[in-house]
């Protein structure tokens, strides 16, 4: 059982402070201390490498879904050669069930900006872009205001805190495509092109934006950097699950009484998290949980005993932490409908570059629609599973996998419900 002490946890990304989005309030509460410290306190921070080492040992695992050690990713950047280098912050969060970054943009944009600036310093980066989905118009304005404030204070721009570190910070608005959250197609989109994922290698650290070294981090990941610098790597890695430490923004939606974003340590039991979010709505029974955004495999209520919100624990029951955007479903939920809706999303959002994804996502949705309407047959379920194997691992980016997994795991875990929806056909036996 998990021993995570979440009851005594004090939030750091979304603390209960009024008007924290205002730069003066943020500074009064210790804001931009971390940035000043890495730039000016040569005793504690012996150059950019020391910052990377600290972040690496904190083991911030990427909060965008892949869960890769952020510090390790930073260390992949080649040595600076005097040319431009980029940090691209991914704020496109478009995965259904995920809405955590927007809370940062809304309530505490400066913790993210400060984290991004520290990351830029650590990797000797010259320009920062933050890519925010177009639907977040309000939050795009808020982040732009926050960046303008930071420019005015001299925290962004030339020779920050009198050091020789200079950096520019731009907001780039997306146009509402899920695929632009994929890191390489986000780069294409930033370059003003059609958001097609790139073939890797070359990896962005070698050839990213405009062919220059680029690191891509999730907004929440970068926000944690500020805390790591302020409180040390040990503080961070001491919070929550051992292998996936630190605070996590849990976005809880669905049939709970108090849906919303909760900042808590990682590794909280899934069932506790539902209680934290006010318990099941109308006292209904829990049926299923999608733990980390729509592409993570769904879990039945009976699979959840003792399972905690970290990648290792979720892997034991065949799912993933993803973005920690948890969707809770009660006993009245129509699973067939849920799966069709998820497939509809991926069909709509496939960029159309690779054959298996372009054609497969549409095929999945059409078969599911047929089953949902009661016209399906049991053999269609096996066809669905077949199509998912035709898609998985055969495309440039992971969207095909993200579309195939829900179908495969939902059918495997709720097969009786799908069969019940299919036509009862008596086949002649030859």
């Amino acid at each position, binding site marked *: 059982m998990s021993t995570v002490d979440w009851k005594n946890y004090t939030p750091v990304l979304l603390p209960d402070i009024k008007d924290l989005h205002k730069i003066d309030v943020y500074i009064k509460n210790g804001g931009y201390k971390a940035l000043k410290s890495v730039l000016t306190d040569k005793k504690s921070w012996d150059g950019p490498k020391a910052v990377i080492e600290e972040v690496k040992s904190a083991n911030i695992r990427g909060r965008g879904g892949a869960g890769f050690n952020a510090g390790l990713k930073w260390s992949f950047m080649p040595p600076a050669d005097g040319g431009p280098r980029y940090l691209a912050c991914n704020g496109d969060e478009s995965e259904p069930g995920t809405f955590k970054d927007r809370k940062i943009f809304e309530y505490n944009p400066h913790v993210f900006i400060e984290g991004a600036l520290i990351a830029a310093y650590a990797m000797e980066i010259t320009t920062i872009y933050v890519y925010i989905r177009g639907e977040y118009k309000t939050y795009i304005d808020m982040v732009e205001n926050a960046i303008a404030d930071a420019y005015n204070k001299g925290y962004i721009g030339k020779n920050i805190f009198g050091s020789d570190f200079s950096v520019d910070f731009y907001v780039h608005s997306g146009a509402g495509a899920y695929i632009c959250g994929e890191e390489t197609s986000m780069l294409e989109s930033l370059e003003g092109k*059609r958001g097609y994922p790139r*073939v890797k290698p070359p990896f962005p650290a070698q050839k990213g934006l405009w062919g220059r070294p680029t690191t891509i981090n999730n907004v929440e990941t970068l926000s944690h950097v500020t805390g790591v610098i302020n409180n040390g790597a040990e503080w961070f890695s001491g919070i929550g699950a051992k292998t996936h430490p630190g605070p996590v923004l849990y976005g809880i939606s669905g049939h709970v009484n108090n849906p919303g974003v909760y900042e808590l340590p990682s590794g909280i039991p899934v069932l506790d998290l539902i209680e934290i979010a006010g318990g099941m709505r109308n006292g209904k029974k829990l049926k299923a949980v999608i733990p980390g955004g729509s592409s993570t495999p769904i879990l039945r209520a009976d699979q959840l005993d003792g399972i905690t919100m970290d990648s290792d624990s979720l892997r034991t029951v065949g799912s993933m932490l993803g973005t920690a955007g948890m969707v809770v479903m009660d006993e009245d939920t129509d699973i067939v409908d849920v799966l069709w809706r998820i497939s509809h999303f991926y069909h709509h959002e496939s960029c159309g570059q690779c054959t*298996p994804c372009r054609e497969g996502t549409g*095929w999945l949705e059409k078969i599911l629609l047929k089953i949902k309407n009661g016209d399906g047959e049991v053999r269609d379920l096996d066809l669905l599973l077949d199509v998912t*194997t*035709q898609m998985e691992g055969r495309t440039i980016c992971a969207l095909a996998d993200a579309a195939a997994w829900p179908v495969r795991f939902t059918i495997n875990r709720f097969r009786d419900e799908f069969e019940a929806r299919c036509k009862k056909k008596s086949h002649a036996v030859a």
Partner: protein
Amino acid sequence: MPEIFIDGHRYEFEGDHKVLQFIQDLGKEVPFFCYHPSMTAPANCRQCMVKAGQYMKDRETGEYEVDENGERVIRWFPKLQTSCNLMAADGMVILTQETDELVQRAQKDNLELILINHPLDCPICDQAGECPLQIQTYKYGPEGSRFEVKKVHKPKRIQLGPRVVLDAERCINCTRCTRFTQEISKTDQLTITSRGDKNYPTTAPGREFDDPYSLNTVDICPVGALTSADFRFKARVWEMNQTPSIDITNGKGTNIDLWTRDNLILRVTPRFNAEVNDHWMPDAGREAYKIFNENRISRPQQKLDGEQILSSWNNAIATLSEEIAATDNSKIVVIASPHASVEENYALSKYTNLLGLNQPVFTPHIEEGTGDDFLLSDDVAPNANGCRLLGFTELDKASIKKEIKKAELVVILHDNLIDREVIAADDLKEKFVVVFATNNSDTSKAADLVIPITTAAEHAASYVNVDGRIQRTYRAKETKYTERRLDLEMSEGRLDRYGTNFDNWVTEDNKIDCLPVWKFINRISEHSGLECNFNDGREIMDEIASTLDSFTGVSYAAMDEQAGIQLSIKKETSTSK
């Protein structure tokens, strides 16, 4: 030397190689759609999947590691790889569909997916017969489809530009066409619009796809999504025969194929030549098929009482001989042509030499503004350099006019001097004018005697392009005096091979009553007791190569083997005034 193991065979390689291209160069096959050797590899069709791995090497000794059974240890890539963007590496192991079931399965699965939204209207599709999707489906595809729901419907019969028509439903989104406009023609006129299975290539709203190289996208389209507005629905591919040739509408000498059915040239497509035009050709040259079919001169024509009437070969020969005999040598001007081949020009000059006339003169055909920095030059004649290398006197327009003024007998070889405003019709008044011509023109109409000659599609002859490369054509089309079945060098389509001359689709009218220039020279020299005996272009070229230093080493065999031969030309003559 680095080594790579493909399907259990060991191959050595040097330099950078994409695995797909490497396999192709070995003469083996991996199916693909989006890859094109002259463009970037986006790896989006996902058809060229192979299983790839690496023999493990001991870091210290550099030797391959072996397991307890003495087998080399292979570390396989976790997923199947697209061979189009996989770079060959030392010790790499590749399994293609020939040896690996998983690869076979993946390729079959991929074809099933490509086909689910493809209309499968092959019976009415122009691409059928030369369609990579059709061919690869037969070879590697599933036996049927399990797709039982509704296909996606997209725009059809969209006129993208003056020459290209789009059927978006047939499109498999390989992006070859959009990459062509980005990387090759650099007009950026095409892009993919919409998303997922609804996407298709198109222009920006309100814009036309009028790229001067637009028809290349039709050639590289692996399905029938982009078709030529001109060629659409004209002929099935398997009914035509394909003959290599040279574009004679421009000095660049683009290598082309002529597509013939029933002795009509129906379309022109580019033919690969790394030294000249790569895989591409300008749209302008494709229109040229018409000059082989339409407005042709058939049978010699002679002016009687100011009007041209049909004559006979015997009459024409007699008339010309008499005129030459009756005219003082200094009053005869022979105008050779940059539009005629090396062989035609040479045959004519040999005859004039035997008569003791001056060396022929010629004027290059320059149209300012035609050229670009790709496959078009301002010199729109295919053989100006050939005339120069034969040692003919190059004159500008004014000097040609002066020469003609002095003469009483003017012989013009295949050059529409009036149409291209070198001279006016009035300049030829009061003179006896002989024109060797393929098509009716103002120049041929002004002639007292018109000798119909073969076009580049009817004779095998060579042309020297603006860069000094000599390349040759093949006979694609029969004349009244040639017979496809007796000519080993002529290609035969299905209808040619299995049909007879009495089939109802054979049109005798499509065969023109004309002779190669050298055949006519044979006959007229025989008539006047001179000795000229040219059998065909091949022999003439051998004679030229043995007598003229500038053509040393040139022969049809050598040209065929090396796809043309680079001759040394003076630099300033290559870009004429």
